[in-house]
């Protein structure tokens, strides 16, 4: 069976090479024969997906059939592993995850090639670039990390099992989402490079690229938040983001992708920043590859050590080739990327995008710098220092606050030029409200900003979030009020029409609102508390308003793992409100322990219990309790962020489809109407 997988991968590689070479000849030559050759290249590209799909299916079927003659299955699966996790075997190890990468790239290539009529020539060029990337990954699959390696000697009756940390429901969807984001960045990269190579006339390519980037950015966002939630719900240290190199690797392309989604508007609207946007797309793709290089080469130490190997050299060489190709075509064709317009004022929407891009890139650079500094310090001083959460928090929080300030101000600025009076008019009330909120929070004693730097940052985050919320709400309100006057609808209905008329703009505002919800959630971490106690039957511990009493503790056993767990009664202000069950497991196949924290989540705070172990003398459980304020806001905000992105992807309805009142009636009403802002 493994032969089928191996030959499929080999055939896939051969077809990718054909799609690449025939594609180049097809676009370089003219005439009917060149067109036919180009068409065969397109079909070969489609067939690559079929080959990789067969290989991936073979691997999953082997996992379900417990075929431990395949080394990958032996190392990453076992008989007792439940069905959903047998699927997860595909991406749980080095070789399988690279095959999964190839599969997704083949899938994206399939969609792109099936939709070639969007712009046949542009797609033909983009297909060549996708085929080149596919060649790299299939070469890895075939020669450096083959998932179909055979076990030599006696085949064991059972496998080593899936990493216990991966045996969690979200792990079945988190890696695919993250990979869809990483791999998906190949498509906008392919379109951007194709447009540069062929000196594409017009701006159609940028519209196509933007939509693809939004889709892949949404996947990446989803993957990052699912990963954070997985870390929170499984790793048992009470946090969701540890600034580990693997986490940083996912954040960097997300930051540059976010910068592109903003600056692309300047190119679409004003024909500006063409070079900048081109390089942002190149950087986003490059950072996706660089992140993979970082986490799989062992260059930096990571908690996620289960995927390290010597394939880093492959990625380094590939990255160097990508950079060389991008620089070459940029130097050759840079004249094509000249701006059509100039910036007219420092106080304008354009300059706000510039500053927004700058801050996002500084954040990205800071993450990259912190991730690589241990390597640099070892190189310079011979000592590898640790760069962990304290560094990243200290450096990135002021940058994030600046970004929040821009999020509030940016949407209030007009294109080309905005008058200071206009900003004052639009920003005065939101600023007063934000200031009032800050004063109220201090007066109520919720935050003491002079006590700790983290509390000051938390206060600033909340105040700036109020400012952003006010500006977003006022944007919706002012637009809806105009529609209400024009159509006679009520304000809620007008908000709906307004959003449908310009889904991109108002979807973006929802995403901004979501960002502040997430930021408030992050600010809550300034007030985290934790306590660790040994608790026998009937004994209690307290944290915040909660009293946690150990009712009992017991054991369990099944084919996959044995576990010990405690039954903890939770009281608040003397009244019992819940029962929680923190658990500790030992997975039999791998003999690895894992904690399963119990989490009681409310809008105010999370009570998070971890069964850390047992007292060896008396067997009493040792429980660590964390009280983490506002964590649920992060998950709610991430959902809203995706909602805003999805909304922005829906095409806007034409204005003419909205019923409008008669001109006379509108004229009569307009005498009482107030201006709808800038």
């Amino acid at each position, binding site marked *: 069976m493994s032969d089928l997988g191996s030959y499929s991968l080999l055939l896939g590689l051969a077809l990718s090479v054909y799609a690449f070479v025939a594609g180049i000849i097809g676009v370089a030559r003219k005439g009917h024969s060149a067109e036919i050759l180009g068409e065969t290249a397109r079909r070969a590209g489609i067939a690559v997906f079929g080959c990789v799909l067969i290989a991936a299916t073979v691997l999953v079927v082997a996992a379900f059939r417990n075929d431990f003659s395949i080394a990958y299955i032996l190392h990453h699966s076992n008989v007792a592993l439940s069905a959903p996790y047998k699927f997860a075997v595909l991406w749980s190890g080095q070789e399988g995850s690279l095959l999964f990468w190839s599969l997704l790239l083949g899938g994206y290539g399939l969609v792109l090639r099936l939709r070639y009529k969007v712009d046949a020539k542009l797609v033909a060029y983009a297909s060549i670039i996708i085929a080149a990337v596919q060649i790299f990954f299939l070469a890895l699959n075939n020669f450096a990390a083959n998932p179909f390696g055979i076990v030599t000697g006696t085949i064991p009756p059972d496998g080593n099992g899936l990493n216990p940390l991966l045996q969690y429901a979200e792990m079945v969807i988190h890696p695919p989402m993250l990979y869809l984001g990483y791999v998906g960045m190949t498509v906008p990269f392919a379109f951007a490079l194709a447009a540069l190579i062929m000196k594409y006339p017009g701006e159609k390519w940028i519209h196509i690229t933007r939509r693809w980037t939004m889709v892949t950015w949404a996947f990446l966002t989803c993957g990052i938040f699912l990963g954070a939630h997985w870390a929170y719900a499984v790793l048992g240290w009470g946090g969701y983001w540890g600034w580990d190199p693997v986490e940083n690797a996912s954040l960097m392309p997300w930051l540059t992708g976010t910068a592109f989604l903003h600056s692309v508007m300047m190119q679409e609207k004003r024909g500006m920043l063409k070079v900048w946007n081109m390089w942002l797309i190149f950087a986003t793709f490059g950072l996706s590859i660089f992140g993979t290089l970082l986490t799989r080469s062992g260059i930096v130490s990571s908690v996620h050590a289960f995927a390290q190997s010597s394939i880093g050299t492959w990625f380094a060489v590939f990255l160097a080739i990508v950079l060389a190709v991008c620089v070459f075509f940029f130097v050759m064709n840079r004249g094509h990327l000249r701006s059509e317009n100039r910036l007219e004022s420092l106080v304008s929407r354009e300059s706000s995008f510039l500053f927004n891009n700058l801050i996002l890139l500084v954040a990205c650079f800071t993450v990259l*710098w912190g991730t690589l500094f241990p390597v640099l310090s070892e190189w310079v001083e011979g000592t590898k*220092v640790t760069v962990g959460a304290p560094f990243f928090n200290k450096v990135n929080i002021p940058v994030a606050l600046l970004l929040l300030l821009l999020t509030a101000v940016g949407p209030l600025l007009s294109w080309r030029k905005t008058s200071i009076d206009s900003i004052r008019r639009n920003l005065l009330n939101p600023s007063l409200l934000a200031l009032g909120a800050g004063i109220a929070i201090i007066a109520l004693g919720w935050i003491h900003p002079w*006590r*700790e730097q983290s509390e000051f940052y938390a206060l600033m985050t909340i105040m700036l979030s109020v400012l952003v919320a006010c500006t977003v709400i006022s944007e919706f309100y002012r637009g809806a009020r105009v529609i209400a006057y024009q159509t006679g609808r009520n304000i809620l209905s007008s908000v709906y029409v307004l959003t449908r008329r310009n889904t991109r703009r108002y979807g973006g505002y929802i995403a901004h609102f979501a960002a502040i919800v997430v930021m408030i959630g992050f600010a809550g971490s300034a007030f985290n508390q934790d306590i660790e106690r040994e608790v026998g039957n009937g004994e209690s511990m307290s944290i915040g308003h909660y009293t946690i009493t150990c009712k009992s503790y017991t054991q369990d056993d099944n084919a996959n793992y044995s576990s010990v767990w405690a039954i903890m009664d939770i009281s608040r202000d003397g009244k019992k409100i819940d029962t929680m069950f923190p658990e500790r497991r030992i997975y039999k196949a791998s003999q690895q322990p894992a904690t399963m924290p119990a989490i009681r989540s409310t809008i105010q705070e999370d009570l998070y219990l971890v069964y850390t172990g047992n007292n060896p003398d008396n067997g009493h459980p040792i429980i660590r309790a964390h009280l983490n304020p506002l964590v649920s806001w992060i998950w709610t905000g991430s959902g809203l962020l995706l909602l805003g992105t999805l909304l922005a992807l829906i095409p806007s309805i034409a204005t003419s489809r909205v019923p409008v009142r008669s001109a006379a009636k509108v004229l009569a009403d307009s005498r009482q109407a107030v201006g709808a802002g800038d």
Partner: protein
Amino acid sequence: MLWRPKYILEALAITLVCVGFLGAGPSRSANTRFNDLGHKLMCKCGCNQILLECNHVGCNYSTQMRDELLAALTRDGSGLGSSTPDSDDLVLQSFVQKYGATVLAAPTTSGFNIVAWIVPFVALVAGLGLVTVIVRKWKFRLQPVGAQDLTPSQLDEFRRRAREDTEL
């Protein structure tokens, strides 16, 4: 006049400078210090986690290191051999001597390590300066457009631009 960008930037700079002076409050309890310092140290069991966040079942390092930290912060003098509580710097230094430089969760602010802290802020300030210079340069290059004797096609072009500028 209060809303001029210059004043806004100045206010922002003052706020950022003020932030640097925050957190220098009165002396903290041993518990608070334990929590603060425990989050500035790494567990040395190889898990790459902050000392107080290491949750490895049966991790020998974290328990021992936490005990040592607690001892250094209390008056009994056990563990690290001091009879009075050590300052934060001394506590961290003693851990560096025992476990090596990688025990610190963030680079120090001395020697080459200070580069780690300076570079991101230099990048931010340089970037802000660069963007401001670019914007000003572009602004002054602007050519005035004549408004008289416009042809219908020019008018259409201006209408298209106006529509684009106000749509989004």
